[in-house]
């Protein structure tokens, strides 16, 4: 239990650093730490598939995020907060925790004892039903393969979206249109 708390604390600390640090590169690195800590938690909570995916995605995201910070000189410029932001944030945080605390005590299962209604089915029948030893794999690619189709499509959409956004010229100029007509 204690390692979970320590790691969660590490993630929270990392997140605060990521948000409050002035240097953008440092912020990105701090987010990287948060993501890697998340991955360790996944590993410890017996979710190896997710942990593996989280690592690779984390690195990919960090690389992309670094790309976004463009030039070093900008990264080192300070970037402020909007006024009242801190106050509001604390207020909101308090409210959220309060709401969470109130709610968790009435309905959410305690940590460590999930309500496995449908999920009991999967470990029992996965090998016989799908032939995959990895139950998670059998869930994502057989029982819920349709979700995975959606997931693949989301990524495809993002790729086309990035291509779209990165076009240097979106609309044709008048002269181009003339050229086309002729």
């Amino acid at each position, binding site marked *: 239990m204690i390692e979970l708390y320590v790691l969660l604390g590490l993630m929270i600390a990392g997140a605060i650093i990521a948000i409050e640090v002035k240097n953008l590169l440092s912020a990105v690195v701090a987010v990287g730490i948060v993501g890697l800590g998340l991955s360790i938690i996944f590993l410890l909570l017996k979710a*190896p*598939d997710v*942990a*593996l*995916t989280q690592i*690779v*995605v984390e*690195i*990919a995201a960090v*690389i*992309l995020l670094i*790309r976004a910070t*463009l030039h070093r000189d900008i990264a080192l410029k300070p970037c402020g907060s909007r006024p009242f932001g801190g106050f509001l944030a604390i207020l909101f945080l308090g409210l959220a925790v309060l709401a969470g605390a109130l709610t968790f005590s009435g309905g959410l299962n305690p940590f460590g004892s999930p309500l496995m209604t449908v999920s009991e089915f999967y470990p029992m029948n996965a*090998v016989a039903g*799908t*032939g*995959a*030893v*990895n139950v*998670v*794999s*059998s869930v*994502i*690619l*057989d029982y819920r*393969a*349709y979700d*995975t*189709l959606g*997931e*693949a*499509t989301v*990524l*495809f959409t*993002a*790729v086309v979206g*990035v*291509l779209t956004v*990165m076009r*240097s010229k979106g609309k044709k100029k008048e002269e181009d249109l003339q050229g086309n007509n002729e």
Partner: protein
Amino acid sequence: MSKEHEHGMSVIVKTVTRLTVGLIFLYGMYIVLHGHITPGGGFAGGVIIALSFINLDLAFGGKVSGKVFSKGGTSLVEALGAVMFLALALMGLQYGGFFDNFLHPDGEPGDLVSAGIIPLENIAISLKVGAGLFGIFLTLIVLQKFESEKKQ
């Protein structure tokens, strides 16, 4: 600065990348092919494959990595992967339903060739994801060039 630094990182990085990039690529494929036996699967493996290309790009610069895998190639492979996945789903229609695991009886659980269409789906996803992520990476880079040209 000396001439050798014009493309890519220092010679040390280049050499080690030459030695290890194949390993990374292979490891990505390992993750993909063993997705139904061990953790991982198409997505994680695909990202690793994409990262191996990104590694190449980082170490050697765009020219070398462009020879290995061009931007046009990425979008082609990506669309191919997507079509393949969808085709697998639709082939199920003939056997009883959307996403029907029609190859399922083949293979013993735990072997490489088992679990029906799951490995095939993994391969399709990995093609898509690998090519897609690398495509995003390349796209983001190309504009950087464009911007810097504009500024000068």
